[in-house]
């Protein structure tokens, strides 16, 4: 260890590194939720799916020795959670928000119950790509050790942005999301589309969980998530259902969350509770600045129960 302090430069570096390290779960959960909400349904249960995914990924990685099998298993369980949500919600007079809260509690409880034997064992971690070889500063090298899932998340955001506009599936999803009646008139079964969209959303959210338990912070216990699944659902609204917006908002959240520890580490120690509130404060400010007195929630899918 030959590292020495890098002083004030630690703050922008920490924000940059934090944006990448902390944002990945937000990216996957919010992209998943975007798919679900674009189909006209809200799945608030993604926090439960995230934690269950974290548990599944860790457990499978411990048992098989392969973190990637863990990620695949998490995706499978995540889509099962999505299917359950989507299937229950297709019955008349069922409220998707209430089901989501129930699914969240179910996922958390089941994850804690089944995850008990996996708190102690150490799982193999997901690989990262060292992009900092050009730098001689160890801190920069550490910050540029970027996990593969982050790049997958970025690529997925771009792909979804393109696919929503330019593919048949994207169009079907948007029609169902904007008007159930129009979709029926076109011969599309809205329930099936929403079921699949919720399943896809669940499996993406579970990847976010796998990142938490298999990479950063890289451990399974019952406190692994500090509400990332819930925050990401809010991020979708903040990002106006735009996948690229979700990606940027997730980065912003990750970076703002790294501000508190980074400032304390350079000796700005007064009022750290206030710095810890930075991500939430930032959200409030952006929402106020971008709000409009005349329009409500531009970009919101018309059939979303949020806007009904």
């Amino acid at each position, binding site marked *: 260890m030959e590292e020495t302090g890098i002083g004030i430069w630690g703050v922008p570096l920490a924000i940059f590194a934090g944006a990448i390290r902390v944002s990945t779960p937000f990216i996957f959960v919010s992209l998943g939720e975007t798919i679900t909400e674009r189909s006209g349904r809200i799945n608030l249960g993604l926090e439960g799916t995230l934690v269950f995914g974290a548990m599944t990924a860790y457990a499978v990685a411990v048992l098989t020795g392969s973190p990637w099998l863990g990620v695949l298993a998490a995706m499978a369980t995540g889509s099962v959670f999505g299917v359950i949500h989507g299937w229950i919600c297709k019955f008349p007079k069922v409220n998707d928000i209430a089901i989501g809260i129930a699914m969240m509690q179910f996922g958390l409880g089941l994850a804690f119950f089944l995850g008990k034997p996996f708190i*102690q064992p150490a799982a193999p971690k997901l690989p990262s790509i060292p992009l900092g070889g050009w730098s001689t500063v160890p801190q920069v090298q550490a910050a540029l050790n970027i996990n593969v899932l982050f790049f997958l998340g970025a690529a997925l955001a771009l792909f979804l942005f393109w696919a929503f506009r330019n593919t048949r599936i994207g169009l079907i999803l948007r029609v169902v999301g904007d008007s159930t009646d129009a979709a029926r008139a076109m011969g599309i079964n809205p329930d099936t589309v929403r079921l699949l969209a919720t399943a896809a959303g669940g499996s993406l959210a579970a990847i976010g969980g796998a990142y938490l338990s298999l990479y950063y912070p890289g451990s399974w216990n019952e406190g692994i998530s500090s509400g990332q699944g819930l925050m990401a659902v809010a991020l979708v609204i903040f990002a106006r259902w735009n996948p690229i917006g979700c990606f940027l908002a997730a980065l912003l959240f990750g970076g703002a969350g790294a501000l508190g520890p980074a400032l304390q580490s350079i000796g700005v120690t007064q009022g750290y509770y206030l710095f810890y509130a930075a991500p939430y404060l930032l959200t409030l400010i952006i929402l106020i600045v971008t709000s409009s007195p005349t329009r409500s929630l531009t970009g919101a899918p018309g059939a979303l129960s949020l806007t009904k």
Partner: protein
Amino acid sequence: MTKLLSMNRRHFLQASAAGALTGLAPGLIGSKATAQTALTVGFIYVGPKDDYGYNQAHAEGAAVIKGMPGVTLVEEENVPETVDVQKTMESMINLDGATLLFPTSFGYFDPHMLAMAAKYPDVQFRHCGGLWQEGKHPANTGSYFGYIFQGQYLNGIAAGYATKSKKIGFVAAKPIPQVLQNINAFLLGARSVDPAITCQVIFTGEWSLAVKEAEATNALIDQGADVITCHVDSPKVVVETAAGRGAFVCGYHADQSALAKDKYLTGAEWAWGNVYTNFIKAAQSGGKLGNFVRGGLKDGFVKMSPLGPAVSDEARKKFEATLAEVMAGKFSVFKGPLKDNRGNVVIAADKAYAEDAIDLESMAYLVEGVVGSTS
């Protein structure tokens, strides 16, 4: 009201069952009377029992008393510091017949344990922490705690020899006296090796926040700290993150050497098994359970992890010499002259506090050399 009714019904059922036994099986009752030491003990944890941290330390203590004759152990984990813990206590008392309860988490005390203590005056409650006060709290309650800052001082000695950057780091949850004692003791231990060493502290604000603890550890290492310790409920994330970045680690609460391998210097661990054994012995012999139980390394309340392979011979010598002094009861971690990190004198030059000094339990400062603030 319905709760009261159901309680009465339960008591009625218990009483009638006992009555039936007296009539039908006098032999059984007789055997019960001879086994006077039968005791059901309840343990309540705020997190999982195998968290490599606070809860694991208590659960290991509970496992020690499990083997004692006549003792039945009931445990429940992941009990939130809400009215839930009252339900857990009631069920342990009424359904399992527990007469001695150890609600181990800080937030269980007020109002939850106090409410249960008032409702069940025949049950004994002992809480881990420093909250019990003579005259203010009922006699069937009490608190027990250990001077683990002695262990953090010894951690500091190992850290002082291991650091090359002369900067060590501490990930702390909240600025309460027990945490501040640990931070200060860690730095004072390191400064006993080299007075130029400073300790950077980062408060996460909560007892268990995995991502923030990882961020805090990374931030400390980015600023050049090369030995890390912590005071959070589960040190697993801090230990793994620090060792993964190549920093040395001093453990806390339980033995984390399996997580950091050769980066693990030593650690300050609880030895609750001894404490619980004493409580059980007192309860079984009909003696009085202490209300305010304290102890440190020499009393067997606290122990050190075995020294890791990275600890030099020089460090080992100083570590063992200091440990011997502590065990002999001749060592003060906090002695004057001592300034806080704002320049105020907090301990006068001629003063030295023994570990059981009551003044230490209200510590509200960080000593000179600690970079950080309590608010």
